[in-house]
């Protein structure tokens, strides 16, 4: 079961970056794990890492527009959480979701093409970085409005129970999102109606420049389900196996008990809030912690696997090369994909065709001659 202990270290007010949480020693023993699965987790985490690095570059080169938020530093959470979801389970996320999209089964090509705004993108170029969506793999949206995904995910869980299904809904969000009205309203409804949903708070200690302590009167976020009698747990989000185990327990309980649960996973946001944010508001100490190898989930897992002999220098290189190639291929694919044609501008206003729908371009009069 998940670690519900408080993170160690001095979490002083106004400097949540100041809590130096050491990795828990109660992480699952590698000896009990299948090496194949371990390597697969590692490969997938590395894929998210390299994909996001490439995304950052492409953004700086103006291949990608709009806002762009990366999962750098959150790879263990992304992979740990998604590894326990069945294909039939649903996932809703915020706008920091490229990694989740890939991990839930979308192709890196489709995700990168969405970032490039091409027709081959998972949302056909209509959504961009913040709005990945794929009916087939059941990631029903990244959402750019903070908290927007919470009622929707809750409603998806309602649909599941309405139909008597046994799918579970997972709803990811950031720490800052626990202060918006939709949080309170959604958790209350989910608990009242016994909905099979796991709310996951990815606590990277900050929403933009605001620390958890600045924004949340109860900074122990996993406790914040208690007002709704929703059981909450906290896990070290730098440890992919710990996240996996915590999430797996809650997802299966949501399924079997038909109840909502809350999971908080903490890890560092390695860069600014978005690609353009230099994060100047961070103190020197906070910046160092966010960069520290000891807090880097990919480095932590890699070292563990190397030490245990699950990963050798050779396989490491093999995996690294393959991942690089996959990311390069995704970027090539995106680059060479077509831009949407202007003639498609009115294709998605309504699902049911309707009389008198406006299809006027800005320069056209309401009544043409």
């Amino acid at each position, binding site marked *: 079961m998940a670690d519900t202990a408080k993170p160690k270290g001095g979490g002083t007010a106004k400097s949540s970056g100041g809590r130096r949480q050491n990795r828990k020693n109660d992480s699952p023993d590698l000896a009990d794990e299948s090496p194949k699965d371990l390597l697969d987790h590692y490969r997938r985490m590395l894929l998210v890492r390299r994909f996001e690095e490439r995304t950052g570059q492409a953004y700086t080169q103006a291949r990608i*527009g*709009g*806002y762009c938020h990366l999962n750098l530093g959150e790879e263990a959470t992304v992979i740990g959480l998604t590894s326990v979801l069945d294909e039939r389970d649903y996932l809703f996320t915020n706008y920091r979701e490229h990694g989740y999209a890939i991990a839930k089964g979308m192709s890196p090509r489709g995700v990168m093409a969405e970032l490039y*705004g*091409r027709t081959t993108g998972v*949302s056909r*170029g*209509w*959504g*961009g970085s*913040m*709005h990945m969506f794929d009916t087939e793999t059941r990631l029903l949206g990244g*959402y*750019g*409005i*903070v*908290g*927007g995904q919470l009622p929707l995910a809750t409603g998806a869980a309602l649909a599941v129970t309405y139909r008597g299904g046994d799918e579970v809904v997972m709803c990811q969000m950031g720490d*800052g*999102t626990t*202060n*918006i*009205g939709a949080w309170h309203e959604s958790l209350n409804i989910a608990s009242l109606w016994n909905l099979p949903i796991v709310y996951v708070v990815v606590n990277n200690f900050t*929403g*933009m*420049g*605001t620390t958890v302590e*600045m*924004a*949340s009167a109860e900074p122990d976020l996993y406790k914040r389900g208690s007002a709704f009698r929703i059981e909450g747990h906290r896990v070290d989000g730098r440890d992919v196996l710990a996240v996996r185990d915590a999430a797996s327990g809650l997802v299966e309980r949501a399924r079997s008990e038909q109840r909502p649960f809350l999971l908080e996973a903490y890890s560092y946001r390695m860069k600014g809030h978005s690609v353009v944010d230099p994060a100047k*508001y961070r103190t020197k100490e906070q910046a160092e912690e966010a960069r520290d190898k000891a807090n880097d989930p990919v480095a932590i897992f890699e070292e563990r696997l190397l030490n245990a002999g699950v990963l050798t220098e050779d396989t490491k290189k093999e995996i690294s090369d393959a991942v690089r190639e996959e990311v390069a291929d995704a970027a090539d694919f995106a680059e060479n994909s077509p*831009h*949407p*044609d*202007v003639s*498609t*501008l*009115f294709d*998605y*206003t309504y699902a049911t065709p309707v009389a008198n*729908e*406006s*299809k*006027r*371009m*800005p*320069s056209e*009069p*309401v*009544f043409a001659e």
Partner: protein
Amino acid sequence: MSVITYRQALRDTLRAEMLRDEDVFLIGEEIGVFEGSYKITEGLLKEFGERRVRDTPIAEEGFVGTAIGAAMLGLRPVVEVMTINFSLLAIDQIVNHAAKVYGMFGGQTSVPMVIRTPGGGGQQLGATHSQNIELFYSFIPGLKVLAPSGPADAAAMLRAAIRDNDPVLLLENLGLYNSKGEVPEDDEPVAEIGRAAVSREGSDITLIGYSRMASVATQVAQSLAEEDISVEVIDLRSLRPLDRETIVESVCKTGSAVIAEDDWLTYGIGAEIAATIQEGAFDFLDAPVRRVAMAEVPLPYAKPLESAALPSAESVTTAVKETLNAVGRRVG
């Protein structure tokens, strides 16, 4: 006079008003430690401290409502809502409370507050982050809605809004923050709320805009002047109250009008202007009033689609020329 950006004009005015009046304080997301999502409040936390520059949790309904309550006790909060899209989470407090408290309690207490918030498409932010929706607020009696198109107006209107005793929405624009212009260096002038401006005189046609589209309208007028077309530009400045007289007077003189707005057409601000023109200048109209507005779709992310959906200098120019053709004057 000094030449500064729209951003700087807002910042300087906030600072000056805070120095002038102890009751003025700032409240909003990321305005302090982060120094503002668009850096309007840069440096102000350092100068004024946490009492006067208050960072909030992500809780639009909560902090906008909190500001309304503080204003009811006579403070003068200046709220920053990060973009107008997020004001939708606070629209209940704005419409049902800020706009109602004065009237509903028989004029016993007013709500002297300002909500500053930028709109503006064209940044590839996608459907939920590219709306303007100023018309939602312009529809509401009890609110005052201002839309400055340049740095001098941004300063003068913000000053007026802070000193006004009613809730004022100051609509900023992402596309204007870096625009530059001459701004007086002292605490003057204080804009008169409810007044449009003729920002360029002309005789052939009236071109009406506000916020970013008012500055686009001026550009269009400048370039059409080279083709010997004399365009009179009206910058609405105040969306509520609306200065109908200035609009009608101009159209009576020119005989035709084009309205440019950065929002959807149906039921929009342009519709209100067009209705005003036919009511006030019917006998003077030589051509139908033309509206240039966004294509009526949730704004797509992909650049070619987004650009096609938004009004631009080109689409405004086309509309002006076609309207003059309808009047009977052959152009381009």
